[in-house]
């Protein structure tokens, strides 16, 4: 893999694994580590991380959200960069942490500093490190879902497609309405299950119409939602996090598939 580093030394990256990757799909974390190390970074994974606090923040529980944000800030502020294999959690740290501390200048300053060096994985590889290609092979047609936070809060749209275009034997086939929400929405999917189901049903229909063999996205929440729906409908479409494909770690079963 060729990588043009924007800083002269070997960047020290703190990987924020995310709670969903930690529990459901550790492979995504290891794929992130591999991609970052291949690009010349030193990767560390602070043990004092749990969740970015988004569930509390989006439920109106500002106090708990602040406590968790402080925990993340304290654990990660000494790294050169913080990288997150999720646009949603990345967006929370980058776009929302500073606002969380309105009226608390000391923590707000620390939140802003962390925000400035926090990036979603694919955005970090391309926009910061200047990675233009990956060494990986994936012989399938794939379609890519633009997860909402990554797309609208972090401007992630062309970056994943540019890297996917360099994966050998991979054929990208765009689905209709790839920018429309899959209906996951964190706690939304259990608070409003019928609405969520409608949204993910429409998404599943677009995915199937694309006739792709694999669905990719950059957020595990959306992926679990879409995979669960596709599998409930009996669709034979593999679902993976984009990092797995970019890192060439696709010999393990896809999301929701048996060993």
């Amino acid at each position, binding site marked *: 893999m060729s990588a043009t580093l924007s800083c002269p030394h070997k960047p020290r990256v703190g990987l924020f*694994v995310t*709670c969903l*990757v*930690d*529990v*459901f*799909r*550790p*492979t995504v*974390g*290891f794929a992130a580590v591999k991609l970052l190390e291949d690009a010349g970074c030193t990767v560390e*994974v602070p*043990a*004092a991380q*749990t*969740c970015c606090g988004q*569930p*509390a*923040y*989006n*439920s*109106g*529980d*500002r106090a*708990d959200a602040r*406590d*968790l944000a402080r*925990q993340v800030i304290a654990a990660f502020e000494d790294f050169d960069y913080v990288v997150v294999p999720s646009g949603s959690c990345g967006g929370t740290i980058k776009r929302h942490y500073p606002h969380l501390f309105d009226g608390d200048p000391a923590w707000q300053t620390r939140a802003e500093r962390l925000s400035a060096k926090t990036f979603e994985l694919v955005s970090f590889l391309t926009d910061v490190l200047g990675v233009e290609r990956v060494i990986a092979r994936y012989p399938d047609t794939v379609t890519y879902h633009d997860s*909402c*936070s990554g797309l*609208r809060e972090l401007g992630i749209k062309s970056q994943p497609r540019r890297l996917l275009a360099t994966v050998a034997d991979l054929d990208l086939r765009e689905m209709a309405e790839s*920018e*429309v*929400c899959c*209906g996951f*929405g*964190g706690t*939304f*999917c*259990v*608070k*409003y*299950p*019928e*609405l969520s*189901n*409608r*949204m*993910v049903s*429409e998404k599943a229909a677009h995915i199937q119409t694309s006739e792709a063999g694999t669905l990719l996205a950059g957020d595990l929440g959306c992926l*679990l939602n879409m*995979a*669960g*729906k596709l*599998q*409930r409908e009996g669709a034979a479409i593999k679902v993976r996090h984009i990092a797995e494909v970019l890192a060439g770690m696709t010999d393990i*079963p896809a999301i*929701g598939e*048996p*060993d």
Partner: protein
Amino acid sequence: MQVTSQTFKSNASVALRDAALQRALKNLKAGFPGKRAAAIAKLPEFDQLRDAGRDLKNHVLEHLDFYLERFEAKVIEQGGQVHWARDAAEARQIVLDICRSVAARRVTKGKSMISEEIGLNEFLEAHGIQPVETDLGEYIIQLRHEHPSHIIAPAIHLNRDQVADAFHAHHGPYGFTERNENPRALMNEARQVLRQQFLSADVGITGANFCIAETGTTVIVTNEGNGDLTQILPRVHIALASIEKMVPTLEDVSTLTRLLTRSATGQEITVYTTFSSGPRRVEDLDGPEQFHVVLLDNGRSGMLGGEFQDMLRCIRCSACMNHCPVYGAIGGHAYGWVYPGPMGSVLTPQLVGIDAAGQLPNASTFCGRCEEVCPMRIPLPKMMRHWREREFERHLSPAAVRFGLGAWAFFAKRPRLYRIVAGVGAWLLRRLGSRKGRIERLPLAGGWTAWRDLPAPQGRTFQQQWAARQGARS
């Protein structure tokens, strides 16, 4: 209008199963977003225009008292009258008093969401005055005794055959005895019926898209021409406007109109843009003898200076609901009050109270499409989150949600303990789904597994594996 936002969830459930509504919603999704996108593609400076629109409205809101008073002075200078209404009841009464002062029996109405907000039609009817909606969509739903399901396309929830039924049921007395399904014929029918109403109305009531402080002018942006007939033919014209509709100058209207029409229908400009400045002058060929503007507050002044002030920039284009996947799934009636979609989810709790409308700001995935398309750059998801915070502070969120959140936060704030619990959880879920790689039924997660499988974890958590790997390395 009765508020039914409390039962949003079951309203939505009914809407999802309403086949006719679902057919109509498909048309909406196929129409508005594409037209908007095409119109904006032709205007490269659209984003600069959005900035200008946002700044303009922010300026107005910072100096709202000044512009309101200036507007009032200018209206009076031109022979018109301004009436200040603190709330819906005052606004209704003002309109009724004006109608009574001219012994009005029939009023024609152009499209006005403020009229819906204050429940004007029911009130006038109860006092022996017949309100006749003249906007085609509004007219259709008035015949059906319904409320608008969309702020610019009030009958968007209906299909052609439902319109044909409504006309067939009501137009017999006007000589239309055959049921007609041809859109052009239906339109002609409505036109002929409404023409008689226009000519016999005593008062015409319209809304106002903008109120120009510089000139004391109200502006309506329409496509059917009914607004003009409503305000020009009767003796009295009443314009209903909420206080945030102020703009400083005529030039500012041009800025906002360019944003409004493109965001709404994808038009560069609507068929009619009508400016009303006072009653008919001696040299005028037509126009009303009296010109009244009712300025409604109804809770809006309470939004100034607070975390919901940005919402007062809204110019009611409907782009947020046209692009909202939740609105697109259930339509407007499920929201349970006048304003549906994302803008309604922010505004309704302010106007009817968070106790009644708490569901609305919760029923969003925060996908952000509404903010992305909002011409006035209103941070709608952020403000829905503010409502959730108010709800949480006041302990209005459901007990199960609070308990679940509290338990989760307890562990999430204790990383060592969390790692153990996460490890156990991953192991357990893995066991449950080991055969298929996924779980089809899970206690306490019925909201998820009723509709979709839950992919099983891979086994040990990332943290467990990472710790083992680090241990092996050192």
